[in-house]
């Protein structure tokens, strides 16, 4: 079990959050790329939500055409560099690599992908140009993976694109959400800057779209609108004491961590509530920030957690402990949090039941709620005729990503309910073609 000291400087921070997938050097890339079998109808490609031609880009690396490899990757996925680092490759491409069937280490696809794209991002060599202007304009709300991917693709098709973004920086949860040991802020921003320099879309920062008037104005100034707004803040948890100081939402905690890094102070004892990947991340992160005790409390069993088991293992290896079958009933404390009262649970006939009289209190100085993100239903109410499903996800056509109001297209977390960067990248790109097809059909 790793024992992390509180980071006192930026350097300490980077040490505690050392990259899980560091950039490959040339020797690693040469040897690893030469292992790829160039499978036919390769399962790794099928497993990639953006369908990157993996055997092709790996062969390009091994034949000395790293730039061509970068092009192959960006051709399918505008977040190719970030995805190489943040994708859960074990359950995607690398999990599907045929080598697994002979217990041979699968090809390190993610790191090869980042290696190839990094070469052009750091040299600044542009591989893509905007298409000849077609006179059409699209507004995009949200500069996350979905929004930016849609913008890039639209630019190659000759559209003018304006992105409206609430925050000060681009890329949504890629920057504000993913764990700092997966990708650094600099790496995230370098890719976006590279794309902006190549393709020239406009991002208007600190520009939240929150009124019906704003929406109507966009409708009159643009030919179509893409919604890449993602999900909202951490969902409310309705238990007594939840409003005490030092009870934070996971998404908010990670955002502060990514922006302030070593300046964030994490107290000695932390309880993280939840069983999804965000909970695993928060547990890993607080451990790396030097907390002495980090408890990951989940109301069901370990096997029922929604998070990937490798993310749980990572949290445990950083020092967190799992506590299962416990339901928080009350946050204890007067002004600040002093602990959490739990009740034990058990599974009976497929139902979760409380074990009466099993209540107990665990002391702590920080509670992180990783109980899911709220949906953006209030925002979607601003748009006439836009329908949501029972889970408050935007309903879209699965190919064109057109919503029930034909002027609006949507993709990413707001449509899938919360997935990965790579899904946003796929949806945004596909939606660009949906927009193109729809506008073409309007004109003809």
């Amino acid at each position, binding site marked *: 079990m790793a024992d992390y000291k509180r980071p006192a400087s930026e350097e300490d921070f980077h040490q505690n959050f050392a990259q899980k997938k560091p950039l490959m050097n040339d020797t690693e890339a040469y040897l690893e790329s030469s292992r790829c079998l160039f499978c*036919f109808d390769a399962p790794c490609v099928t497993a990639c939500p953006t369908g990157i*031609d993996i055997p*092709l880009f790996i*062969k390009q690396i091994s034949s000395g*055409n790293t*730039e061509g490899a970068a*092009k192959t990757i960006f051709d399918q996925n505008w977040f190719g560099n970030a995805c190489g680092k943040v994708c859960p490759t074990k359950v995607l491409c690398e999990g599907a690599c045929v080598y697994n069937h002979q217990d041979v280490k699968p090809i390190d696809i993610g790191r090869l992908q980042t290696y190839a794209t990094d070469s052009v991002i750091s040299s600044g060599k542009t591989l893509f140009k905007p298409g000849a202007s077609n006179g059409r304009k699209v507004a995009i709300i949200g500069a996350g993976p979905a929004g930016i991917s849609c913008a890039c693709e639209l630019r190659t098709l000759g559209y003018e694109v304006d992105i409206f973004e609430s925050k000060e920086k681009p890329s949504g949860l890629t920057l504000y959400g993913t764990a700092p040991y997966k990708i650094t802020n600099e790496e995230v921003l370098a890719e976006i800057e590279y794309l902006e320099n190549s393709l020239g879309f406009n991002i208007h920062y600190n520009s939240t779209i929150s009124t019906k008037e704003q929406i109507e104005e966009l409708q009159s100034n643009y030919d179509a609108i893409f919604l890449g707004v993602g999900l909202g803040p951490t969902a409310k948890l309705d238990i007594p004491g939840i409003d005490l100081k030092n009870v934070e939402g996971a998404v908010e905690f990670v955002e502060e961590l990514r922006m302030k890094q070593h300046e964030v102070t994490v107290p000695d004892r932390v309880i993280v509530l939840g069983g999804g990947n965000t909970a695993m991340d928060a547990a890993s992160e607080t451990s790396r920030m030097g907390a002495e005790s980090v408890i990951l409390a989940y109301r069901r069993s370990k096997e029922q957690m929604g998070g990937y088991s490798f993310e749980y293992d990572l949290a445990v290896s950083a020092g967190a402990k799992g506590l299962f079958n416990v339901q928080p009933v009350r946050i204890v404390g007067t002004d600040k949090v002093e602990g959490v009262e739990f009740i034990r649970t058990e599974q009976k006939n497929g139902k979760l039941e409380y074990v009466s009289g099993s209540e107990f209190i665990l002391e702590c100085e920080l509670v992180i709620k990783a109980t899911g993100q709220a949906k953006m239903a209030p925002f979607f109410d601003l748009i006439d005729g836009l329908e949501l499903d029972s889970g408050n996800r935007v309903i879209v056509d699965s190919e064109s990503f057109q919503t029930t109001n034909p002027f609006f297209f949507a993709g990413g977390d707001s449509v899938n309910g919360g997935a990965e960067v790579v899904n946003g990248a796929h949806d945004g790109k596909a939606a660009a073609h949906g927009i193109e097809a729809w506008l073409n059909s309007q004109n003809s």
Partner: protein
Amino acid sequence: MADLSINFAGIKAPNPFWLASAPPTNSGYQIMKAFEAGWGGAVWKTLGVPVVNVSSRYGSTDYRGSRMVGFNNIELISDRPLADNLKEIEEVKKYFPDHAVIASLMVESKAEWHQIIKDCENAGADGLELNFGCPHGMCERGMGSAVGQEPEVLKTIVEWVMEVATVPVITKLSPNISHITDPGLASVQGGTDAISLVNTFKSIVGINLDNYAPYPDVGGAGSNGGYCGPAVKPIALNMVRELASHLQIKGTPISGIGGIETWRDVVEYLLLGASSVQVCTSVMHYGFGIVREIEAGVLQFMDDKGYDTIYDFVGKALPNVKEWKDLNLNHKVVATIDEEKCIGCELCYIACEDGAHQAIGLSGDPGNRTPYIIDDNCVGCNLCSLVCPVQDCITMDRRDDGKAEITWAERMANNDVPTTFNDSRAGGLGHYVPEPSLALKKNQK
């Protein structure tokens, strides 16, 4: 973007990436699939005299983790009925009028040659390729390499062909010969429009250690096969170069064949004078899909260098392939080890120590496994940099000032060459060589 289209001796194709006459071009089905995938032309599996084939036909040379770095076969020419092949040529041309479909031929008598040429032209073939290559089976019947190895016979057959052919004729050469320029020149004298090479090399890829039969094993026995694949590329490249720079042959378009798998291989063939290439083994290994790596890479290369068509760089390396006597004897490189990158395998040390010039030393300190170069002893042979497993760890740095150049030919003209065995002008005289007895004293690893 660069234009890949070519006009090869009158045969037009959207790109220079062709399939060689072999199993991948056995049928119209395969060739149509290949054209769909991006290949610009295909030389049909050789048509001709009726044959039968054996079962168990291929053998492979694997090297460490890599399969099929060399590949051999004892397969004969097409064993499908000629009429079926002709019908399919016609059909492929209907779907792909702009792609190159070339009929490869191998028959015996003049009358047979004339007949099959007429049949193929009627079917719509864009060109003909004369297969004088197979070094197994067909040669026992007086065809294939039996012709390729006899320049006079080859010339006669090319002449028979040229009497009647109305589409461009490519003569495919066998590499199983001392001087490739002999059959090359014979084909030009016979009137061929173009040359392709190489066909396969006579080979045995291995022996079964239980029944002592060579691979591929046909019931406890085998035959010599024809060798191809990545392993033969260097030999084929040089043969292409020899033809492309031969005074009476250059000018005749060359289709380069042998070990091509990546864009880089293609570019190298073109730089040495080929103006189309043909691929067999790597397609047999990975399928038609490899053309997407080849095409993307060649285009990238052309864009980077600013070439509009392949003709902007075909043969561009030829002037740099000189005779040894015209190389600059003052050019001097010395190895340098990047200590930051070195992983301490000491392969460079032992390679130089046992296999070259004793110009690398070890620190003697168990904590420091990074070898060092003894500059004075280093002759600049490259060996250490070739064995080093780390990319760009050992580099060969230039040490002469690059000003005064002198070649052996010039020194000959100046009467400044060593003439006796102990002449002080001999190259190795000043070099350090350890005393033989040191071999026994030194604490050798």
